[in-house]
């Protein structure tokens, strides 16, 4: 089943590359059909997921490179099942959105599907090499999508994005091999299986550099302050359907990597570096929010607010306790939904008015009452109004940070920074929402209409999830919680002898 989830978009992508661009019906059917099917499958595993079982479920395993014992192994636990669902929802929505545009390019759609497959693969891979392959697979379509269909200084933006990400991922490859080597030295079994490797007790000094290699790759992808400087450019240039996948799903692969690799593989290093990284994350969230306050361009306002919210998520991860991590994973899902909805709204406004400048738009409410209602709900979720989904995640994260043992006295400071971020979020979100929708404006074009049915259908699921998770977070948290417990309490059964520390010299 999991293999199908990855295979369907890839097969569809190949079909799309080969299909002549005249057959519009077919293009539409293939693109929507494949992403819709993936969504149904993702929904299936989400509903079929057994919350009481903290082990990997739906595991699919077959040999890939048998010489090196590299497996094609996929599986989901409570964290990945949410991320898979999120990715499937967002891909479906953004492909649906793109198909409504005037000029539909088959290559664009095919690349989107490859991107989707890459992201889904990352979330499900249980083999480090396989993970790395999917990790790189994400990059290629993203590079072309921004480079070919972007706006503004798109070549600069996409090059910067790729170089940044490559630096990180190459370091990660080194660490991936490093972990296997350590395990091999201890047991003389060659494996890249994550479930096996996490039980290896890696010596502390090695833990630190490997941890840093992994962390850098993930930190760039998320991005964590101060590795974020590719983001404003890439987001600025990125076409909206891609951006929704980028911010909604791809940025989560970094956070997911931290949870899947950094914490269980290197618990001591995580404990040691935790408060430093949390400091970076906390700085990033205030920093992003503060810059968002000064933005006039609504796309970059949402982009910087994303930096801020992603900082929140990383902060929660390094609380290294149940509440912090549960909150972070839930918030990953929430942020995916909210940010995606916000970017769609940005694009709708831009298409209608031809501008993204906040100072030039006002008073859209009169002409667009439906968008007004939806936008209001999304705004409230974005600024973390209690009772909606954003707050559940933020509350758990901050509760986790406050009680975190590894942060000790710094926890309170980080929570205060979090509170400052929430206050700033209220200000910039209201500037955005009120600035665009309220007051009066005579200069609006006379034929300006409300959003059409298709756009409503696309935004309604987001609204539904925003309210639903706010009211019933339990089905989600119940899936996350046991897996997080498992990750936080990995037993190190494979001991490495002290002597193997200097094993490189034989």
């Amino acid at each position, binding site marked *: 089943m999991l293999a199908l989830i990855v295979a369907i978009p890839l097969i569809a992508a190949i079909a799309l590359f080969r299909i002549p661009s005249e057959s519009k019906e077919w293009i539409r059917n293939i693109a929507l059909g494949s992403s819709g099917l993936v969504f149904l499958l993702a929904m299936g595993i989400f509903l079929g997921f057994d919350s009481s079982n903290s082990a990997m479920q739906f595991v699919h395993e077959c040999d890939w490179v048998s010489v090196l014992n590299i497996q094609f192994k996929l599986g989901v636990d409570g964290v990945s099942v949410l991320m898979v669902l999120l990715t499937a929802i967002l891909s479906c929505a953004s492909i649906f959105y793109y198909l409504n545009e005037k000029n539909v390019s088959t290559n664009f759609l095919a690349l989107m599907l490859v991107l989707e497959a890459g992201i889904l693969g990352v979330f499900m891979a249980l083999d480090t090499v396989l993970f790395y392959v999917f990790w790189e697979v994400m990059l290629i379509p993203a590079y072309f999508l921004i480079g070919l269909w972007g706006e503004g200084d798109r070549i600069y933006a996409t090059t910067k994005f790729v170089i940044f990400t490559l630096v990180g991922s190459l370091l990660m490859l080194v660490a991936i091999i490093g972990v296997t080597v350590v395990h091999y030295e201890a047991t003389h079994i060659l494996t890249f299986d994550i479930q096996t490797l996490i039980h290896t007790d890696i010596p502390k000094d090695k833990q630190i550099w490997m941890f840093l290699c992994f962390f850098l790759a993930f930190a760039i992808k998320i991005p964590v302050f101060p590795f974020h400087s590719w983001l404003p450019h890439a987001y600025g240039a990125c076409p909206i359907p891609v951006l929704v996948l980028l911010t909604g799903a791809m940025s989560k692969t970094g956070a997911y990597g931290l949870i899947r690799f950094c914490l269980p593989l290197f618990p001591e290093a995580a404990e040691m570096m935790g408060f430093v990284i949390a400091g970076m994350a906390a700085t990033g969230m205030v920093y992003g929010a503060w810059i968002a306050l000064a933005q006039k361009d609504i796309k970059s306002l949402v982009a910087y607010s994303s930096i801020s919210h992603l900082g929140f998520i990383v902060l929660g991860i390094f609380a290294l306790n149940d509440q912090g991590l*549960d909150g972070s994973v839930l918030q990953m899902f929430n942020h995916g939904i909210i940010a995606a909805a916000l970017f769609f709204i940005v694009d709708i406004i831009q298409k209608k008015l031809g501008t993204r400048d906040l100072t030039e738009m006002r008073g859209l409410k009169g002409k667009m009452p439906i968008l007004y209602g939806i936008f209001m709900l999304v705004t409230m979720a974005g600024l973390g109004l209690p*009772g909606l989904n954003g707050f559940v995640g933020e509350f758990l994260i901050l509760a986790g940070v406050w009680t975190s043992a590894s942060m000790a006295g710094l926890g309170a400071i980080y929570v205060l920074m979090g*509170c400052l971020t929430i206050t700033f979020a209220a200000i910039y979100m209201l500037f955005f929402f009120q600035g665009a929708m309220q007051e009066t404006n005579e200069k609006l074009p006379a034929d300006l209409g409300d959003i059409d049915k298709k756009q409503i259908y696309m935004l309604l699921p987001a609204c539904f999830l925003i309210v639903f998770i706010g009211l019933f977070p339990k089905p989600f948290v119940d899936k996350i919680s046991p897996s997080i417990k498992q990750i936080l309490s990995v037993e190190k059964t494979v001991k490495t002898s002290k002597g193997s520390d200097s094993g490189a010299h034989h």
Partner: protein
Amino acid sequence: MFYTWLILILPLLGFAGLSWFGDRIPKKLVGPVGCATVGGSFFFTLVALVHLLSMEAEERVGNVQTLYHWIQSGSFKLDLAILIDPLSIFMLLVITGVGLLIHIYSIGYMEKDPNIDTFFAYLNLFIFSMSLLVLAADFFFLIVGWAFVGLASYLLIGFWTEKKSAVFAARKAFVMNVIGDVGMVIAAFMIFENFGTIAYLDVFAQAPEKFLPNDDTMLLITLFLLVGAFAKSAQIPLHTWLPDAMEGPTPVSALIHAATMVTAGVYLVARCHVLYDLAPYTMMLVAAVGVVTALFAGSMGMVQYDIKRVIAYSTMSQLGYMFLAVGIGVYSVGMFHLMTHAFFKALLFLGAGSVIHSMNDEQDIRKMGGLKESMPITYYTFLIGTLALCGFPLTAGYFSKEAIIMSSWYADGSNPVFWALAIAGAGMTGFYAFRIFFYAFFGTCRTAEAHPHESPTIMTYPLLILAFFAIFAGFGAPLAHSFLAPVFGNVIPEHHTNVALEIVAVGVALSGIIVAAIFYGEGGKSEEKPDGLKQLLAPIQDVLFRKYYIDELYDVLIVQPVKKTGEFIWNTGEKKGIDFVVDQVGSQVKEVSHLLSIWQSGKVRVYALNMIAGAVFVLIFVVFL
């Protein structure tokens, strides 16, 4: 008592239904639907009240109704539950009772507004949120309700979205309240950290055993809760949003910014009285801030010309009295003033709304005058409301306020300074309340083109009902105290009688009225002729009128620096700093690779040389290391 959920569900359904179908049903139906849901809530509140009264006193507290398990994450468990006890039902009576009257009034007031469906949807949302706030059985859903009333208040202040000032006022109110929410969230974390739970009953049961009075943790928890309470109840220094909130329609001011939402802070202190009893220092602060705000707001109210703003300042001032009461530990006295205040303040606002309505949305008292003849019902009910506000003997306000003033002399946590300040505040109240009264109703009308007329009956009936309670509710004081006693540890506040003190208190209040009568007895002055007070207070009049320049101060100290810093970080830190460094790394690498590319010249001889050099290097490495 599972039916109590209906108190929450009905207005929520009203909100959902009206916002979804509101524009598809006839406009005439919108108002009755909005009223029906609140009426239903009021009915079930009454049922719950009877139910509680039928129980033994000690059984009335601690009835928790759980709907479902909301979340479980590690040791953090939470149910979606509500707590039915005398305190929550007491608050609900005010919320749904006064709320219902204001809903009915709104049918008349908002009749001509094209967005009346949205208006009633928001009002229903507010009733739902406020009920959630008082019914919550734990700090989490308290915060949820707390934020939702903030949202409803935001939506209703900015209801006329085409008005720029309303949009700004709404944003200001929202941001101020977010600051308060944040304080409460931190308090909730501290409670979770120390008690391992955030459910009221568990926390309050553990607190007295776990902490000694004035323990640092307890002080911090109570102080962080106070941030929320002060922001919501517009106490110094988080008060600046309330006067601006008067941009909203007048029924909103009556419901949210007078009768119910702004009293949430007082409710919070009363609800958490177990914690506050363990933090006498905080209590001292509560009382002090309360009495200072009472005085401070009164002084600003004396010189304003906007009829709603004056009433808004008087609300701040009366909230100050309530905080004084809970701050000196006489909780049910504070709660009782909350109730009587809801009656007479809603009455005053609705009366002001009636005046504004008939003057074609004019709020400046200098342009009113002589409304006594043309609006008799509004005139008499407004008079009753004004008298009750001033604490005129035998009105409801007299009983509740007098009890606070007497307690501020006698109660354990009080001192004569509080008493003296409270008395001074009462004098100011008499003055500013009658100032607007004389301005609006006496003399002759100062706007030639206005044709003031009495409001329709749908607006005057709520006025009459509220006026009835504004007069007679005071006699219910002993009942209220004994009803609330189980919540506050079975303490019924002592009734102190001291004729001398009472004479002083009443005398000061009356002298305020008399001064107002001397200055304005013949009606107010128009804009051109400065009134007597303005000349008398000339040096400080400006300071008072500009609200002590606090808005300007906040702008200079907080708003501008935050804005400037944001721009600075973006321009300097982001563009010239991090981005520049990263790009430099890129271009430096390019430079270096340029140098390296010399080696890739395509000349075979150079390649061969390199290979040999490399091989030698590796050899040296292998042999010697």
